[in-house]
């Protein structure tokens, strides 16, 4: 079972804070060019182009929506046909037991319902939310500041060099994170 309160593996790395998205975007491109893997950014809103800059893969959520939507619709239709024509067929207003036109609205609604709720579920799963254990790196990151985080990775990790590199990206503040 998924536990939002369970402790996550510790967060270690270097955080660079920026005051405006322009600088952030430029820095992100540099981070990627410099070959840092697993770098992440924290922004108060979705800054367009940032994922591309950081080389983050495209989200797989649309596939969930599509597949779940279609299965929802299929299940809805199947359920209607099964209850109306097989489980207990009842003559209603002289209509055929499988009154397909009448089943369309619910088929559609089932598709949307399952597709939509599963999209939300997929978002939570993809982001690992809810997650109350990861520390807030800085309160301003949901307000007016932007950050790039380069996690400690592998044996050839060099904190000093990373800090040095980030200083060169016009970061307004640098922090070493040991959470």
């Amino acid at each position, binding site marked *: 079972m998924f536990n939002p309160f369970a402790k996550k593996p510790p967060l270690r790395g270097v955080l660079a804070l920026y005051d405006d998205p322009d600088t952030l975007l430029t820095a992100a491109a540099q981070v990627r060019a410099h070959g840092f893997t697993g770098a992440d950014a924290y922004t108060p809103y979705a800054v367009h182009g940032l994922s591309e800059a950081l080389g983050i893969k495209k989200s797989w959520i649309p596939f969930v929506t599509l597949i779940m939507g279609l299965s929802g619709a299929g299940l809805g239709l199947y359920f209607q046909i099964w209850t109306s024509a097989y489980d207990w067929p009842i*003559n209603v*207003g002289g*209509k*055929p037991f499988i009154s397909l036109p009448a089943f369309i609205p619910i088929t559609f609604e089932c598709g949307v319902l399952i597709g939509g709720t599963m999209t939300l579920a997929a978002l939570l799963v993809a982001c690992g939310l809810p997650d109350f254990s990861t520390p807030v790196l800085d309160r301003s990151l949901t307000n007016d500041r932007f950050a790039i985080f380069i996690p400690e990775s592998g044996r050839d990790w060099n904190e000093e060099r990373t800090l040095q590199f980030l200083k060169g990206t016009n970061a307004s503040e640098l922090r070493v994170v040991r959470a």
Partner: protein
Amino acid sequence: MSHVSGTGNGNGSGNGHANGKPSEPAVIRLEPAAPPKYWTSLADLAGDPAVRDLQSREFRTPSEDPTEVPSRRDFLKFLGAGAAFAAAGCARKPVEKILPYLKAPEDVTPGNAVYYATTCGECPAACGALVKTREGRPIKLEGNPDHPLTQGRLCARGQGAVLNLYDPDRLKSPVVVDRATRAASAGTWGEIDKKAIRAFQQATEQGKAVVLLSGTITSPSTLALTHDFLSTFPAAEHVVYDAVSNDALARAQELSYGERLVPGYNFDKADLIISLGADFLATWLSPVEFARGYSRRRRPESGVMNRLVILEPSMSLTGTNADQRIRVRPEDLYPVAMALAHELLVREPRGGMAGDAGVVQALRAFPADGVETTAGLPQGTLTALANELWAARGRSLVVAGPQAAPAAHAVALQVAVNILNSALGNEGVTVTAATASRQSQGSEEAMTRLVERMRSGDVGVLLVQGANPAYTLPTAVGFAEALKRVPFVVSFAERLDETASLADVVAPDANFLESWNDHEPRRGVRSLTQPAISPLVDVRQFQESLLAWARYLGKGPLGASTASWHDWLKERWRTEVYAAADAAAPFEIFWEGSLRTGVVAVGTPAPSARPFRSGSTAGLPEPGTRADGSLTLVLYTPTSMYDGRSANNAWLQEVPDPVTKITWDNVALISPSRAKQLGLTGPTESELSSEVILVDAGHAKVEIPVHVQPGLHPDVVAIAIGYGRSAAGRVGNRVGQNAFMLAQATGGRIGTAGISVKVSNTGRRASVAMTQGHQSAENRPIIYETTFAEFQRDPRAGNESHGTLPSMWTRHKYAGHKWGMAIDLTSCIGCSACMVACRSENNIPAVGKKIILQGREMDWIRIDRYYSGDPENPDTVHQAMLCQHCENAPCETVCPVLATTHSSEGLNVQTYNRCVGTRYCSNNCPYKVRRFNWWEYSRVPEKSLRLVLNPDVTVRTRGIMEKCTMCVQRIRDGKEKAKALGVAVVDGDIQTACMQTCPTDAIVFGDLNDPLSRVAKLAKNDRGYHVLEELNTLPSITYQTKVRNREEANA
């Protein structure tokens, strides 16, 4: 809700089944083996702690006892009681057998109905009836199919009569009234008897008369008993008085033919019926018999179709069915009748009577053109009618309403009718004295004479039975004042009615369902009344009271008799009916057989024409002059209320008047043109209230709401009698206005028409609970009609049905039965018997005026009444409208919870317990026949009213939809009966309640899949069509086009 009645004990989510708490009948069973009196009673038991305990347990509310869910559980107790009850019935003294009907099961099995043959006691028409009982409770009245006159049919009032049995406002015991203070207190029978005996002795000592004042008594045995009883006293008289009287008719018969009687009328032998203000399809004499006879000769397919012409001032139910309707002021009815005779016998002398100088002399003053001028009729109207009559001589019938003409003309009008019938050779054919009616014997002259005698102090004891003169006699007669001069008055009324509250003692008579009796509605037809239940309250049958008193007095022919009334009746049958019936079997077998069939035909002399006494035309009034357009009042007898005797019956109050469609009220009817002139509008579709007008007849006045009634003569104001009772009970009190007050009493005659009145607007408004606000069918495909001539040329005439319409879907198969119905608009007269039958069969609550004003009436079957043509004298169509059981039912498709679905037998079934009450089905029903339970109608404080419920039909709870089920419980019963016998269901075995009672056979139910069934043939016949066919709902109900017997389609 004071007006609610006839509902059950619905509880919570479930619908309390109509089981009826085991109140009175169950208790009676617990009576000690030898009860002190003839009838066991509640009062006797009240002291018994065991009974008190049982009662308290029976009526415990569910919350008091968590282990017990009330209704069903009580029902079972009651079921167990059922068998014992039958046994207790046998233990009664005297020991009687109550025999079931021939085809009914041998004994009482809980859950199975037992039918008893009896006679309807609602009015003196005395139609044959069957009482359906369940576990010892009468729950429904149906016509007795073996009865030669009514052939298994009942009218609306007959269908409603069963409710009177359970009326909580019936007297529960004898009552002693203090005449000074008019305070009534419960008495005992011993007390009553003592008082009565003393009064009888005093009257005898003082030489004062003992007078029995009764309504018409159709029972020969009762008449014999009263005769024997009265003969005990030196001065005694039996005065018969009917509020709705045929005195003028009987008097005219006496003048014209020598014997005072009301003849038998054979409407089934008449091709041309002319009615001068006689409402014979609704209220006159024997409406069920007449409607049946009338409709039997009104089958277009048979090639013969009678023609009905009515000349009337008001708009009666018969008038709405007329092929030709001529509006005549009440004062002109007599001249018009005379003018018709003038045409036949004077202007163009035809037939034997033309040689009768006396008659011809009397007719001279009535030339047709002159009368047409004074009556405001188009020239030639009467000539044409007379020619028609002559063409149909011997096959025609002229009748006149004894109360339709002013008092001064009442007898004269009837004499004129006698002239016509004799001249046309109808006498002895369509009018027969050999089968004379006993259904109306009242004499207005005798009544007014009695009031004089009472006033003079001549009357020592007055016994009042089956009459309510304090209510029905016009104030001018002074009955109440005269009554004060009578030292001792006994009333036999079953309630403390207007007259009973003026009496000294009330010795409540038993309801007819608790009584023994016999009836002879027409000479040669003897029927029996047998109790279907022991009295629910401490009452004693009227005859039993007379016998008891005679015994106490110890004098006269009854003085030594120890017989009970039952013995007496049986003995009369032994000596009288058994002898005349010429039966082969021993008497006991004959008696039991008579109880089973309920009716015995005794031989009558062959009908023959009586010679007309020409002397009877002497002294007939002269023709009047042309009316000045002043208003004249007509008091008419309403279909459901009759003379107001059952005003406390909510079922009957709730039946809309078939013409006005107004419930719970009487109103003043005026014609559209007069309304316009007076600036009155009456109630409308969107405004169920109306101006209150003051109708001033000089000697009396009433304030009453007005209704604009098409078809009324512009000079006429018509008001229904039978309303405005002050002592009918909680339901019937203060419903409408008492119009009897407006009647005139002149020359020993009560005049109910042609009373000059003034009308003024009071400026106030009153609500009018009208169930149909829109009068026109708006040329929609609802009603198709044609004329008989057109029909003979092309049987499809007027029928715009197209047969099958295309559909997206293939139709479902109905392999077994497929129930359906056919309704013939030509036959349907709108009498509304089906509405009350349906209400009784299906536990439909009466909801009361307030709720009807909210547009929430509950009838499953209603009669739609549409007018067409000239609003001043429109054509009328009555259309019974009920669930059409559409094959493509629009209601079913929209129900979200599958509460209404289609059965494999083609029924549109409603599962009440599944219904959540979206009302979508009703919205989507093009016929709007579904009824919603807006309130909890099943919660009735009066437990006795629950006893009338049919246990086979679920009582509906609040918040659910209900509608016609085509009496699915009757279908089930019919199928179960056939299955038990191992045979197929035969057409006619299963009848819906509406079909069963329809006096004109307009409703036919059956299996559409059975090619031999009547309904299958009717569904395919050329007149058959579906209402709103273009919607392709494929109704299971086929209507037959309305055929009118006249020249043009829309005259």
